[in-house]
């Protein structure tokens, strides 16, 4: 099926971004330089109290990882987006976003002033009239968070590579909010945040 490009934009390393997808439109996220974590939230564009929910998403699928066919659901279990293409094969639903506050726990109080995804989300959500209450646990595209048999989990080296992408089809009008993760203390982006490209298409 042919498609028409609606929008194309490169999100700088560490920067936030948002876009409202119309129902049926497809967002393709390209990991331009490889091994970049793209933190991702989604909301019903007409009722932003309906936010992406990691927990309802996992209730309805047989794996804690996301890949082609996975449906991202809101807090009432309604479908927001479907992963329709995925060149990486594993994305995280458990780890959430980095924040200045959690960085102080994970690495030490010296990280307090560093840029973090929670700051990106607060800044970008505020542009849509939303606030901290609306900041819930997010998807981490390209981030690799294995769970060991004893329950140990952690962010480890990514399995993405330059140019790999995934595509999401909007199942209704959806506001997507992105933090192109600025984390420099763990391997989620190889300790070196990099660019991501956002391409919005629709059926021709």
């Amino acid at each position, binding site marked *: 099926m042919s498609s028409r490009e609606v929008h194309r934009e490169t999100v700088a390393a560490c920067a936030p971004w948002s876009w409202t997808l119309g129902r049926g439109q497809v967002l393709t996220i390209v990991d331009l330089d490889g091994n970049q974590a793209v933190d991702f939230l989604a909301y019903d564009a007409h009722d932003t109290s309906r936010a992406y*929910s990691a*927990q309802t998403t996992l209730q309805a699928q047989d794996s804690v990882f996301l890949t082609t066919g996975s449906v991202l659901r809101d807090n009432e279990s309604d479908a927001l987006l479907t992963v329709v293409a995925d060149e990486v094969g594993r994305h995280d639903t458990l780890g959430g*976003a980095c924040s200045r*506050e959690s960085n102080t726990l994970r690495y030490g109080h010296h990280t307090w002033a560093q840029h973090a995804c929670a700051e990106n989300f607060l800044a970008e959500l505020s542009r849509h009239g939303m606030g901290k209450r609306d900041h819930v646990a997010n998807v981490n595209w390209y981030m690799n968070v294995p769970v060991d*048999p004893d329950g140990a989990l952690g962010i480890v080296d990514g399995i993405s590579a330059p140019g790999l992408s995934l595509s999401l089809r909007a199942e209704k009008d959806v506001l997507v909010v992105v933090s192109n993760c600025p984390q420099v203390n763990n391997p989620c982006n190889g300790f070196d945040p990099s660019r991501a490209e956002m391409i919005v298409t629709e059926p021709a």
Partner: protein
Amino acid sequence: MSSTTSTTAGARDHARAQEGTVVDAMPTVPAAGAGALPEGVVADQVVWAETIAGGGYGHRVLAAGTTVRLTDPTGDACAGTLLHHAGMPWERLNVADTVKVQWQVYTAAGQLLLSDQGRVLATVLTDTSGHHDAVYGASTRSRNQERYGDGSPQGRSPAGRELFLLGAGKHGLGRRDLPPSVSFFQGVRIDEAGHPVWRGSAGPGASLTLRTELPVVLLLANAAHPLDPRPEYTVGPLEVLAWRGRPTTPDDPLWCATPERRRAFENTADLRKGLGL
């Protein structure tokens, strides 16, 4: 013929005669009247004693340093749990930080329930169950409608999220105030491919104690776990007993159990001091 409640005086007498009725799911008021206290706890310290029915919910504002004992008498309770900082509910339980910061997805004694602000809302002090879940959260109305034919909060198979909404509403909170939750007494493991493995409960009589480290609103939704494979909606009563004490101090072995936990306790102690607590 007029009934005994056809007059104001008769209706009043009828209403007043109900006092003293005892049912299975109810609070003990005052809580100091609760029987069978744990060793070392005196009646005067008890602040909350309640049995929450299966399909019911509980909620309470608790001071920092309160110990909350949850007990599953039948093996069928499922204590969906949320914590908000009392009076500052924009600070609330963050399940992702809780599992990520502590490098551990399974709840056990010693686990801290962390807020989104790098602080400890509550500490898991003791646990005889080991069957808990921080991944799948509460069921939704539509999921229970599909599985059991009803997910409404006062119907026969209430969804956990609907019960959380009612509890949150009593504290002026709404839909945007409900982050991911944890569930006590019904467990799920994740295999290495990422698939869920249902473990259910540890059986009748398991209990768990939490110690609050800040003033909190504790919300409990006692609803069937969303992955419970049993075809019938199954959830038993949940017993709650809470008593006053002190938050965790630096001389407690938990304080320095890991560097991440020590920093979380340090952040929390500084805030308490700033609040004059």
